[in-house]
């Protein structure tokens, strides 16, 4: 039972078909007929992505994924500016801006707008990086308010839309954002493609210059199958109400067993629930659920597979609960059976882990 969509969404059939169709094509930069066929496919994909985010095709820069898209935004848009990012941002943003300032979040996980205003007043013309939805909690910042604040202080807003794209409709460029990072496999496409979408005509200095692909903004032969798959996935549709219903049922059940839903007070992605079980280590929960055939995640796994304490939950002031929370994230194609299936496994895990601890809080 797969409940780890925020790590990667299951591949959508239309995305798989598009990727397969693109495999074996020529280099889109080639000038011959075969190259033109590949190029057409890539430009078709560019138009789909542009339309989806309210941009012009020329402002879509394809790359390898969100880590690269976010880094490109931080480097290109942040050049010569102070960089601020939210305390709950993904490591790929935090690592791209080693000297960046941290914008605190409130206990519900949303960005502290007053703190942001203070930072911007002190350093006008900064680059502000915020995620449209958090990968661990699903918490969504008020991006319209953040964009307005940035506009007032001459700051640029970069939106990490990796988790929000495809799951909620928001017109970030329309709000005034300068750029948006997306990842193909987080919306049901294949791994290996992402895009940085910038506001009209914004210039981007390449991180990788290479052969001058993507109008000199990102060198390297593009991964056409993954790009075509990403574009197809964007057209796949998302049954938000159905997914929300499952999530809410699961969450209510777990709360009755003593779990705490972190960030539940905020506006959230419909598919995500961050469930802390007081007194039970996240890793123990994760292993028990895995052994029962239920795939969830906890914190941020490093390449060793070790589950590290979540910086997201720590920033929210979750205290000890930060090490006792798992992330349940429903995939786009979750069947109704996922609700009783997960609840049964969770109940068995919680009862065993809490067994014999009654009375010792």
């Amino acid at each position, binding site marked *: 039972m797969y409940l780890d969509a925020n790590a990667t969404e299951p591949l959508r059939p239309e995305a798989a078909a598009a990727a397969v169709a693109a495999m074996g094509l020529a280099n889109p930069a080639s000038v011959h007929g075969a190259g033109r066929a590949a190029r057409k496919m890539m430009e078709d994909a560019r138009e789909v992505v542009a339309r989806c985010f309210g941009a012009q095709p020329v402002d879509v820069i394809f790359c390898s994924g969100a880590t690269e898209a976010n880094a490109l935004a931080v480097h290109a848009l942040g050049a010569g500016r102070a960089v601020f990012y939210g305390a709950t941002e993904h490591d790929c943003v935090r690592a791209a801006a080693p000297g960046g300032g941290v914008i605190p979040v409130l206990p519900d996980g949303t960005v502290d707008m007053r703190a942001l205003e203070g930072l911007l007043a002190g350093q006008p013309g900064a680059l502000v990086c915020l995620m449209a939805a958090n990968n661990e909690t699903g918490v969504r910042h008020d991006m319209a308010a953040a964009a307005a604040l940035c506009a007032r202080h001459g700051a640029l807003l970069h939106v990490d839309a990796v988790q929000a794209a495809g799951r909620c409709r928001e017109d970030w460029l329309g709000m005034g954002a300068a750029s948006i990072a997306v990842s193909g496999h987080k919306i049901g496409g294949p791994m290996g493609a992402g895009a940085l979408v910038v506001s009209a005509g914004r210039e981007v200095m390449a991180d990788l210059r290479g052969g001058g692909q993507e109008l000199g903004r990102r060198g390297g032969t593009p991964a056409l199958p993954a790009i075509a798959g990403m574009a197809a996935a964007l057209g796949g549709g998302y049954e938000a109400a159905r997914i929300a219903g499952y999530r809410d049922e699961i969450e209510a059940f777990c709360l009755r067993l003593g779990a705490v839903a972190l960030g539940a007070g905020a506006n959230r992605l419909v598919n995500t629930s961050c469930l802390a079980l007081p007194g*039970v*280590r996240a*890793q*123990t929960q*994760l*292993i*028990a659920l*895995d*052994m029962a055939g239920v795939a969830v995640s906890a914190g941020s796994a*490093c*390449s*060793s*597979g*070790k*589950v*590290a304490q979540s910086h997201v939950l720590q920033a929210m002031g979750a205290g000890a609960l930060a090490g006792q929370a798992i992330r349940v994230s429903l995939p786009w194609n979750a069947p109704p059976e996922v609700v009783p299936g997960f609840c049964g496994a969770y109940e068995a895990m919680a009862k*065993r*882990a809490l067994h014999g601890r009654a009375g010792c809080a």
Partner: protein
Amino acid sequence: MRIVVAMSGGVDSSVVAGLMARAGHEVIGVTLQLYDHGAAVGRKGACCAGQDIRDAKRVADTLGIAHYVVDAQARFRDSVMAAFADSYASGQTPVPCIACNQHLKFGDLLEMARDLGGEAMATGHYVRRLEGPAGAQMHQAVDESRDQSWFLAATTRAQLEFCRFPLGDYASKAQVRAVAAEMGLGVAEKADSQDICFVPTGSYAGVVEKFRPDALSEGEIVSEDGVVLGTHQGIARYTVGQAKRLGNAAAHMVVKKIEPGTRRIVVGPRRVESLEVRLRDVNWLIDAPEGGISAGVKMRARDSVHAARVVPQGSGAMLRLDEPALAAPGQAAVFYDGSRVLGGGFIV
């Protein structure tokens, strides 16, 4: 049966995981991450996991079993490394492997195994667990040169009930390696691990310096009647019975006592043996014998057996040795009846 296997990434615990899987058990391999490898080797940007963790994961992949890495860094730092430094700072000679077994492997990990619905936990220790009329018994390994029972003497009876040690029956390490090779495990020829895993260079002073710099400050070397014979660079560098690093004036002498308060190393002519040894925190694997019991006692990891009478005293015990022997404070004294471990405690 669902069995949790403590996998270090070495050949021994890898074979144990393979044996359990082969026997048809549902195996959950767990590797404790004890310290940050990247920080330990001092290479910026290095992964927190070392080669051992990657090896354990590959073994699990090969065997087709579940495997998890559990973060035990904070616990290891506090209950093993800091305790190790504290022990040296108080003039004792610690056994960090016993502390690690006690607190991490047979403490936290075993607890986790129970939480996961495990019915047993298996490790790669060379020791035997035999079913007796009054529950599980701990015995020395068949291969005496590999026997690790001395390091496991703090294991409680309840923990022992839950544990399995399949390597205790193997006649030699070569046999274990052969099984690893037959299972197709890449670690079959991997070198044996270090004595103390967190001091790979063999110099433990660095660890002590980090946690207890006071234990590495200068002090006096004195004779038993108080005559100053020289100076030393920290009491943590000495162990009772040691003859090295005493300087010319104290040549042919040995350390008889370490005084943490005055930072003095007291030396005397060879003969630091004692007939009576007091023990603290004794763990009995039999019902504590009220009037005492005759046993063979080992007071170091590779000690010979000393005949003694062990008399319980509160939570500790008094050892009355038939012949005088060297007893270094902080080391473990483990009591045997033939191959069977009766219990053990720490020398005061």
